[in-house]
C-alpha cells in the first residue's frame, strides 16, 4: 500500500518534470527583435528611446555587477552610502566602470545621475525569472552553453587568460604549457580560467577551485598551490597588490577568442541598443582609449604555449 502511494506521488512529480513545454517566450542569441518601430534604429540613443518601457526603472539604466567591485575593472575607491566594497561603480572608473559610463551616455542616460548600480551575485545573474537589472557587467565570458539562459551582448573586451604566481614557485620560470604539467594550479569558480586548466594545460593534479580569489592567494602563499589562472588584467592586479613577490608568469593563447559580454534577460530588446553603443565605441576608438587608460600596463606578458 505504501508503494502505491509512493508511486503516485513520485509519478505525478516526474510527469510534471517531463511534461511538454509551453512555448518559450523570447528568442536566443545576441540579437533580439523587439521595440515598437519597424525600422532598425541607427544609434544607441534612438534604440533606447524606442524601447523606453523595456528598462527596469523608467528613465534609469540599472546595471548589475559583483560586490566587491575589483580592480582593474572598477576603480576609484568606495563612497559613503554605496553598498559596494573596494570601489563604487558609480564613479565610472576602471575598465568596466568606464565602459558602463560610456555605454550609458550613448544610450541617452546621463552618468551617473540616471544610472543605478545594483550588486548581483554570479548565480543571480543567470537565474530564471525576471531580473532586477537591465544587464549585468562583471567579467562574464560568452559561452555557447550559456546562451539559453541569458542573452549576451557583443564583446566589450577580448580576454586572455594568464598564470599568476609568486617568485620561487615551481612555475615561476615556466615558458611553455608543458612546464605546467606537474603543477598544482588554482582558479576561481565559474570562470573560463578553470577551462584553461582542464582543457588546455591538463595537469596531472586536479585543479583547486575557489569561491574567491583571496583564498586562492592564501593557498599560493602557503605553498599549497603553485599558481593561479585568471584573466590577464586581474593577474596583473593580483601580482602587484595581493600576492607577496607576485609575478605574472605568462598568458595563454594570444589568439584566444574568448570575450567578455554583458548578460541580459532572455528576449530583452536592450541588447540591440547596447550593441549599437559598443559598435560606435569601437568605430570611433573610444573603447581602445578606455583600454589604454585602464589596462595599458596590464597586457604585456610572455605567451605560454
Amino acid at each position, binding site marked *: *500500500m*505504501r508503494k*502505491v*502511494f509512493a508511486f*503516485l*506521488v513520485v509519478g*505525478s*512529480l516526474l*510527469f*510534471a*518534470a517531463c*511534461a511538454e*513545454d*509551453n*512555448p*518559450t*517566450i523570447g528568442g536566443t542569441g545576441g540579437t533580439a527583435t523587439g521595440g515598437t518601430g519597424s525600422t532598425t534604429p541607427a544609434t544607441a540613443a534612438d534604440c533606447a528611446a524606442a524601447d523606453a518601457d523595456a528598462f527596469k526603472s523608467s528613465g534609469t539604466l540599472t546595471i548589475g555587477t559583483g560586490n566587491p567591485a575589483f580592480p582593474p575593472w572598477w576603480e576609484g575607491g568606495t563612497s559613503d552610502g554605496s553598498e559596494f566594497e573596494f570601489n563604487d561603480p558609480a564613479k565610472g572608473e576602471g575598465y568596466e566602470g568606464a565602459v558602463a559610463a560610456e555605454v550609458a551616455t550613448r544610450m541617452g542616460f546621463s552618468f551617473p545621475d540616471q544610472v543605478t548600480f545594483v550588486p548581483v551575485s*554570479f*548565480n543571480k545573474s*543567470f*537565474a*530564471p*525569472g525576471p531580473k532586477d537589472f537591465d544587464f549585468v557587467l562583471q567579467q562574464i565570458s560568452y*559561452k555557447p*552553453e*550559456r546562451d*539559453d*539562459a*541569458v542573452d549576451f551582448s557583443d564583446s566589450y573586451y577580448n580576454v586572455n587568460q594568464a598564470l599568476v604566481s609568486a617568485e620561487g614557485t615551481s612555475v615561476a620560470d615556466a615558458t611553455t604549457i608543458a612546464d605546467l604539467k606537474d603543477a598544482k594550479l*588554482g582558479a576561481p*569558480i*565559474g*570562470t573560463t580560467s*578553470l*577551462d584553461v586548466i582542464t582543457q588546455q594545460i591538463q595537469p596531472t593534479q*586536479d*585543479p*583547486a*577551485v*575557489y*569561491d574567491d580569489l583571496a*583564498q*586562492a592567494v*592564501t*593557498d599560493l*602563499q*602557503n*605553498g*599549497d*598551490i603553485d599558481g593561479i589562472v585568471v584573466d590577464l588584467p586581474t593577474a596583473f592586479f593580483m601580482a602587484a597588490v595581493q600576492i607577496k613577490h607576485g609575478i605574472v608568469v605568462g598568458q595563454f593563447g594570444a589568439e584566444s577568442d574568448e570575450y567578455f559580454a554583458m548578460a541580459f534577460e*532572455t528576449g530583452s530588446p536592450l541588447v540591440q541598443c547596447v550593441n549599437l553603443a559598443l559598435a560606435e565605441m569601437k568605430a570611433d576608438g573610444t573603447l581602445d582609449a578606455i583600454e589604454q587608460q585602464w589596462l595599458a600596463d596590464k597586457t604585456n606578458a610572455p605567451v605560454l604555449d
Partner: protein
Amino acid sequence: MIGGGGSPEKYQTLPGGSYTPPNGDRGSKILAPLKAEGARGVTIAVASTVVVFGLLVFAILNSSGWPQIKEAFFDPEVFWDSLGKIMARFGRNVFIFVVAEVFVLILALIIAVTRSLRGPVFTPLRILAAAYTDLFRAVPTILVILLFGFGAPALQIKGVPHSDLFWAIVALVLVYSAYVAEVYRAGIQSVHPSQVASARALGLSRGKTMRFVVVPQAVRRVLPPLLNDFIGLQKDSALIAVLGYTEALREAQIISAANFDFTPFVALALIYIVITIPEARFVDWLVARDQRRLQAVGGV
C-alpha cells in the same frame, strides 16, 4: 522442580496500566487510518491524494514562470551530462563522511563518557569535555574548516600536513563529535538508574558497568538522532569545497556556471536523496528491532 511460569504470550501489564504488544507497530502512522477503515477508506484516500497532488502539479505547470524554471532546473541534456561527473566526485564526499563518521562515533563517545564520570578527581576532565562541546557547537562549521584548512598549513610547522582532505576531515570530526557527544550523553542519561544499580550490585566496576550495561543501551536508544547527525555530516562534507577541493557540490557549481543552468544541483540533490532514504529505513528497522527488546522490559 518449579513449573514453568506464565505462557510466553502473556502480555505484561506495566504499572500504570499501559499496554505494550510484544511486537510494537513502529511502522508509518501515515497509512494507519487506512487499515482501520477498510476498502472505503482506501478509495477515499487514493482519490484525495490524486486530487491534491494533481492540483499542485497543475498549478505549477501552468504558472507563467514554469518554462524558464524547467529549463533552468530540469534541463535533461545538462542533467545527463552532469550526472556522471557529479557522481564521480561524490565518491570523494563518501570517503570524507565515512572516515569522519568513524572517528566522530569514537571521539564523541569518549567525550560523553568523560562528562559522565563521577568523582571529584575527574573535575578538570569534565570541564574540558564540557568546554569542548560548547566551543565546537558554537563556531560555525564552515569557519572551523576555513581556520584549519587555511590556518594550519600557514603555520608552516614541519610535519603538519597540508592536505585539504586531512584538515577538512579533522574539522568535521571536531565539530560533529561535539554534537554527537551530547546525543550520547542524552542516551546515557536515559538508561534507567536501576540498570546501573543492578550492574553495580553484581560487583561490576563503574567502568565495566558503562561498558557492558549503559553504553550498549544508550547507543541503541539514540540511533535516530545519531542518524540525523550523520546525515548532516554527509551534507557538510561539501564544505571542503571552500578550501579549493573539488567534491560533488563544487563540481555541480562548476558545471552550473559553465552552462548558466541549475540542473546540476538538482542532480546532486537526487543523489543525496537516493542515499539518504535507505539509510533512514535501515535505522528504522534497527530501532524497531531493538525497541521491542528495550521498551518491553521496564516494569516487571
